């Protein structure tokens, strides 16, 4: 156990801004990558770039993890650390999501080392990933609608470019354009929502909004409309209904490591900001009656998980199936916002959702990185193309089996406990029907996840492909993700307890 370093109370050890060190480190790493690239634009070595990017992301995740263990920003050490006039806060929630974003970004950069072998503009790729990661980690810290919007855009703009990174590939460019157009639309809706809330309350800071909402007199309807539009902005970022339809296109067209990054880290960051905004700015006891965002999220959760699962079941393309499964998982995580009521233990529910996103960060990233490995070998895209894959690469196939069964929520893997915790929390808050819909969807999902497993292990190889080279970086990232998914079964306790106490601090 690390020594407790309560930053707030012992400012003589570390300056206050050091609480933001993970985000700062991510941003600085992006700058360093630019510098390396501008010194030697033609011959910057892939290994150097990947090494710097990997070190930066691992460092950020490690610092955030250390702060989290040390109790930085928790009520025990003096509460959330407020910076820049309250526009940014560092507390358990922001650190928890920074750990998710940092570890996913680390796996993605390590895997990209091989994926980018034959591509140009490697430095831009890594620095865009780092910039997006900076934005995502700030999203968890944003405590004012202004910083929420800015960090959201900082995460989104590099993402658009990254999806279209394979610029000689039509699919990639098309996906980037679709992602950008829908992203721009949802940003506009989101910004308009912010302006409506501002019109009703006159403030942008999240705690201040909560105070002002108690007395909006006849502007309650305006505020309600604003909240609804803000929900739309989050739906885009988390790939939930009704702004989900960019996800299959973008995830399928994007380079597979970017699909992994967007579907795990970007989604988690979207939830981070949603959790904070709705728990702090629109708490149930303060909002006017017209602003029933809990009902909105209940509908969205049910529709999102059902739609994601049924659409995934009909896919023939594995990457697209994973994209829809990612929508389904957004639906499960939405339970954290849907199973909220005035008299329930909301911290436990939201914390369970955070813990699910944490486990999801490993298993889903691993699954998409497996696709990256398959693309690297030109295996093909449909389920049939994976026939007999296990005879060629048993270790990678075993890792993919772990991801698939864990995503389905089968018990010997981390995904079982995270789903169980989520549904149990929903039942305890009295929303047993949400848990029931989730459990039924989860049982159905085994159908399409097991198709991959069946193809890899049970079916005989129909087409033969040659494995010339076993990429070290991709393999390492996949194995790390698989080990993480397995270890999160015995180690789920600390994760869920940290998440639940971090979430409880918001209420």
């Amino acid at each position, binding site marked *: 156990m690390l020594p407790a370093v309560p930053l707030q109370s012992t400012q003589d050890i570390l300056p206050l801004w050091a609480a933001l060190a993970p985000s700062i480190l991510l941003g600085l790493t992006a700058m360093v990558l630019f510098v390396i690239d501008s010194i030697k634009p033609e011959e910057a070595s892939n290994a150097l770039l990947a090494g710097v990017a990997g070190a930066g992301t691992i460092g950020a995740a490690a610092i955030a993890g250390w702060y989290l263990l040390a109790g930085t920003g928790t009520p025990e050490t003096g509460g959330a650390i407020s910076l820049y006039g309250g526009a940014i806060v560092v507390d358990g929630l922001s650190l928890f999501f920074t750990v998710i974003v940092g570890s996913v970004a680390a796996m993605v950069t390590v895997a990209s080392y091989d994926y980018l072998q034959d591509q140009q503009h490697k430095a831009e790729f890594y620095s865009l990933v780092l910039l997006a990661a900076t934005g995502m980690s700030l999203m968890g810290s944003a405590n004012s609608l202004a910083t929420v919007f800015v960090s959201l855009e900082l995460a989104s703009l590099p993402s658009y470019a990254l999806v279209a990174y394979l610029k000689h590939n039509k699919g990639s460019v098309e996906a980037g354009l679709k992602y950008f157009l829908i992203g721009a639309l949802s940003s506009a809706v989101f910004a308009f929502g912010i302006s409506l809330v501002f019109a009703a309350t006159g403030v942008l800071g999240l705690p201040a909004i909560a105070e002002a909402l108690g007395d909006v007199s006849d502007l309650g309807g305006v505020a309600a409309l604003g909240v609804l539009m803000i929900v739309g902005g989050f739906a885009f970022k988390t790939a939930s209904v009704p702004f989900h339809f960019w996800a299959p296109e973008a995830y399928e067209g994007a380079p597979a490591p970017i699909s992994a990054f967007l579907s795990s880290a970007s989604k988690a960051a979207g939830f981070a900001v949603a959790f904070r905004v709705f728990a702090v700015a629109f708490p149930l006891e303060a909002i006017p009656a017209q602003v029933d965002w809990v009902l909105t999220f209940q509908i969205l959760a049910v529709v999102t998980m059902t739609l994601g699962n049924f659409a995934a079941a009909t896919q023939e393309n594995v990457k697209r199936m994973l994209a829809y499964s990612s929508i389904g998982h957004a639906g499960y995580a939405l339970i954290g916002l849907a199973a909220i009521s005035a008299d329930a*233990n909301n911290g*436990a529910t939201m914390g*369970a959702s955070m813990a699910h996103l944490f486990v999801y960060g490993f298993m889903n990233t691993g699954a998409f990185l497996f696709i990256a490995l398959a693309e690297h070998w030109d295996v093909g895209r449909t389920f049939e193309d994976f026939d007999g894959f*296990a*005879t060629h690469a*048993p*270790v990678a196939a*075993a890792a993919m089996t772990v991801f698939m*069964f864990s995503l389905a929520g*089968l*018990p*010997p893997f981390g995904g*079982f*406990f995270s789903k*169980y*915790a989520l549904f*149990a*929390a929903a*039942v*305890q808050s009295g929303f*047993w029907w949400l848990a029931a819909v989730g*459990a039924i969807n989860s*049982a159905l999902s*085994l159908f399409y996840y*097991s198709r991959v497993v*069946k193809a890899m*292990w*049970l*079916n005989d190889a129909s087409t033969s492909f040659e494995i010339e080279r076993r990429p070290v970086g991709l393999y390492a990232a996949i194995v790390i993700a698989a080990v993480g998914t397995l270890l999160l*079964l*015995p180690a*789920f*306790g*600390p994760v*869920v*307890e940290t998440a639940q106490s971090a979430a409880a601090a918001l209420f």
Partner: protein
Amino acid sequence: MIIEMLIAVAFVAALVVFVAPDEYAGKLAFALSLLPAVGSLYMWSGFDATGNALTGGTLAFAEQFEWFTLSGYEIQWLTGVDGISLPLVVLTTILTTLAIVSSWTPIDDRQSQFYGLMLFMEASLIGVFTALDFLMWFVFWEAVLVPMYFLIGIWGGPRRKYAAIKFFVYTNIASLVMFIGFVALVVATPVTTFALPEISQALRGGEIEGYLSLSAGALRTFAFAAMFLGFAVKVPVVPFHTWLPDAHVEAPTPASVMLAGVLLKMGTYALLRFNFTMLPDVAQAYAVPIAAVAVISVIYGALLALAQQDLKRIVAYSSVSSMGYVILGLVAYTTYGVGGATFQMVAHGLISGLMFMSVGVIYNVTHTRMVGDMSGIADRMPITAGIFVAGAFGYMGLPLMAGFAAEFFIFKGAFESTVLSFAPLFTAFAMFGIVIVAGYLLFAMQRTLFGPYEFADDDKYEVGPAALHDTLPLAVLLVLIIALGVAPNLFFGMIQDAVNPILQTGGGL
């Protein structure tokens, strides 16, 4: 710590074998599987538990660690054995080692993956029989399915994919139903833990409240039904048995041995631990329908076996029949009934393992299992045929073999049951099953093993004595079966000691 060491050794052995080269995988797996086998025998010799694990008895080799707290419920790593679970742990480790040896001949493809999965399954099975925290137990329970799915699906017969998926879907849905039933029960009980001993004692003490507008009584009945359904698929009892013949016929021989020998016992073990220990009053209230299901399983399973032409199908259906006896013993609620049922789990594990292995050895040589394709095999394979005959007599309940002791205990216990109405009638019907068993086994042996030697594919395959490493596991099993038949007290004493507390407060004795 010895339980943790057994699980860890088997798990690490699985990883090692998984990456070992194919040529050595079988031998390496055998050598590594000896460690848990010896460890479990050491546990048997040092066994010092008294009473039942779930009714406040003292456990042997118990370990307890805080794991984490989830929505107010404490989840622990809680292991230990009592007189019910220890025999099953010993059965698991011994049968795994023998099944690994019996795989040397038939498994000639992707060996390291095969043996790795066998050892992974062993680790999970030990966990199932030793875990005493519900969530931890459930993790192991489900972890058993994954390797069995692959064992059937990769190394099975022509329809292996269908059989593997049917097995997986049936047992997974069953697990979900059971899980919901039990969790509903826990939520309605004033406990703050998933530790089975505490839940069991709270339930037996009647500390249950209504939940979701269900009264306490309705909830208990609902939970009992959900858990019974979930476990009945696993056992399996008629009418939930249809996955079993498919799985058995397609599975490679060693997987069949594990499936019939140990995996079916998971279902009866769980029935005993959950339904019959925690909710004895519900079990007794519905004793007649449960006994009816048991007797139907016995008779219908035996009749189905009578109609088969495939040796493996014959043995598979006879498992349905034998598991029916176990249910009958459980529902009787007498020391010989429940104790005999537990003894039958071990006895049937050994005997059905022996039968499947013998059929496998014959198949290795003849490449057919159809009764009509061969006759007079004893002429060419005298030792295998001899052991086959001995095993079949064990199945029929020949005195001084384990099957006799088990079935005798069950019939004695069921006959004198005070809880079950019409107990003598049910017992009499169930005993009729033995006649059918004798009928189909003798008939099948007469046609295949005896008579003049004839074999449909004589020009293709040379029929001769099996290799030593094929017959040795059979001989070991036969010795164990006779040993348990001559001295049932090797296990029966500890079983009775663990069973009696269930009955004392449950009202049977």
